[in-house]
């Protein structure tokens, strides 16, 4: 145990050491985890996280990710239903979009540290801030959905309602997918590393949610498009999610562990099951359609909450910050000295 001969950080009985390789190590366990990167030792400052965990509240922000997607997909179904003569589908989707986006706005304002200053979001126009662009987007989109829903309920001002429904449908895909950029444009490893595929995951998840609401609430005769949308959306979501996990490297690990892992496994089962049920039996009975729709809605929500919690977990553990950066650095400059 003399100084010159002992490699730095070699465990020698003291537990307060934080030299090289003194970081926490974790055993992989549980199913659904694949060894994507070899176990690496790493250093940290007493195991403390490098990043600050997001201060966002899960109910507000993960809830918003879900509701924003639900609203966006519903607006598309509303416009489609209106254009193809499916009034019940259009009605449910319009009300769904307006309700979901209203709840979204409430959640977003509630999450602010200074809710009274929410309007400051619109004091600049700033493309480098996805939250700023999103605020402008919602400022345009939310009133359109409200007009569409109000004219639907009132049964008057039909041309205004048609125009609002169509305009909302134009903005809807952006509303449903920009939220992926919102969370990926952070230093949080399990969000940022998925930034190529996350918009597609969110697009698929939004489509299944919107279709789920329609399946649950609309008479079977008018749910044909919703069933097909559910199937296509589930395929997009699950496919993009699988690709994302494979490409994320170590940052994919939090997607398979803990609360996030459980939520995401549930999301996959609910989405796949709901879509299969919708495609198989959803056209025959109201009951099966309602079950399928509920499963799809729950699956979409579970996905958003799962991804939210995975990101928080990845920020709280220095391993997901340090190891990929260390590997990147060593690939560029060769192994570190010392």
């Amino acid at each position, binding site marked *: 145990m*003399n*100084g010159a001969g002992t490699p*730095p*950080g070699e465990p020698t009985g003291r537990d*307060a*050491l934080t*030299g*090289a390789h*003194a970081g926490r190590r974790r055993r992989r366990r549980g199913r659904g985890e694949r060894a994507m990167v070899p176990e690496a030792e*790493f*250093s*940290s400052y*007493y195991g*403390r*996280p*490098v990043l*600050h*965990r*997001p*201060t966002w509240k899960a109910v507000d922000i993960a809830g918003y990710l879900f509701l924003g997607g639900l609203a*966006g997909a519903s607006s*598309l*179904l509303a416009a*489609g239903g209106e254009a*193809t003569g499916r009034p019940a589908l259009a009605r449910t989707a319009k009300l769904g979009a307006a309700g979901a986006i209203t709840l979204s706005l409430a959640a977003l304002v509630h999450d*602010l*540290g200074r*809710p009274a*200053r929410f309007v400051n*979001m619109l004091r*600049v126009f*700033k493309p*480098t*801030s*996805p*939250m700023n662009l999103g605020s402008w987007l919602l400022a345009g989109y939310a009133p359109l959905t409200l007009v569409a829903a109000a004219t639907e309920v009132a049964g008057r001002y039909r041309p205004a309602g048609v125009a609002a429904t169509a305009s909302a449908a134009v903005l809807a895909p*952006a509303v449903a*997918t920009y939220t992926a950029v919102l969370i*990926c*444009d*952070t*230093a*949080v490893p399990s969000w*940022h590393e998925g930034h*190529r595929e996350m*918009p*597609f995951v969110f*697009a698929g998840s939004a*489509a299944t949610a919107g279709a789920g609401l329609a399946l649950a609430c609309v008479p079977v005769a008018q749910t044909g*498009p919703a069933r097909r*949308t559910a199937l*296509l959306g589930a395929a*997009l979501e699950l496919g993009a999610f699988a690709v994302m996990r494979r490409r994320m490297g170590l940052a994919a690990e939090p997607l398979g562990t803990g609360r996030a892992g459980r939520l995401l496994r549930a999301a996959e089962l609910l989405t796949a099951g709901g879509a299969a049920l919708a495609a198989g039996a959803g056209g025959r009975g109201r009951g099966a359609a309602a079950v399928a729709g509920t499963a799809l809605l729950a699956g979409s929500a579970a996905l958003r909450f799962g991804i939210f919690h995975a990101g928080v977990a990845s*920020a709280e553990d*220095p391993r997901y910050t340090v190891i990929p*950066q*260390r590997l990147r*650095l060593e690939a560029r400059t060769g192994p570190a*000295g*010392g």
Partner: protein
Amino acid sequence: MTDGTTARRADADDEAIRAHLFSGPQPDVARAAGHIDPPPRMGFFTDTSVCIGCKACEVACKEWNAIPEDGLELTGMSYDNTQGLGSDTWRHVAFIEQRKPLGGQEPGTGHEHVDVFAAARGLGASPASATTPAPGAAPPGAPAGEVSPLTPDGRTELRWLMSSDVCKHCTHAACLDVCPTGSLFRTEFGTVVVQQDVCNGCGYCVPACPYGVIDQRPDDGRAWKCTLCYDRLGVGMEPACAKACPTDSIQFGELEELRERAAARVARLHAAGVPDARLYGEDPGDGVGGDGAFFLLLDEPEVYGLPPDPVVTTRDLPAMWRHAAAAAVSMAALAVAGFARRPR
């Protein structure tokens, strides 16, 4: 030099500024942010090899900026009970115990030929040089022979690393990029500051920061971090932490000059037998375009709780928007496909 040459150079500068608005080397960060004819970029060089862990910087920062108390806890992990940077801690002294020979961090500053009484007599005469030595004015580096042998009798194998961490005032600052209200802004000194009368506490800057610096005050709701004492800079004073630092571990000045000083210091430490000495955050080519507050470290950055290779998240933002646009088109196409068949 003709006017034409100057103009051409200004054009070239403009081009370089525009070419690296989001990532990469940015020659003039204040001008890139829209300041006309700004003063030189100011920053910190924190030389941890001479930090003694006194925490005067933490105290001075709290005092000057009237930062609220944020809990008195004993962590038991080291002499560090501050734990890390946050909304109410803008300077944090990390304290690391390591099983490495103490001689390895001998900073190589032999003071035996310095007459402190003579220096003290000169204090009143030249205030500038009393606290901040000019780059070339420091005594010549200790030759390797003067450094203590690595395993001398009576020395422990333990070394203490102390390092005063602070907001890095990145060249490409993610907190500033993602701020939706424009509350975070680039000052004329090239630093990054929160306008507290604008911040609405959205919290986006918190997970955006690759260093885990800025945070939200729970009771207040807004985001807070080091301002590099913007108020003091405005009247030509140095920041409170640098003013209070008794060993000049925290050096404040023009960033260009600090970089030269730091390079000289590393060379001296290497010559004095401290091969672990390295600069962190000084490289304008790194993932954040270089830090306005950079460090001399004696071990890997992660040992101090710093990310080894931070990248500003907005470097990938154009790619993210492209992917989101493709996903939005896919979603619209998917909905159209859903309606493509005849109504049943």
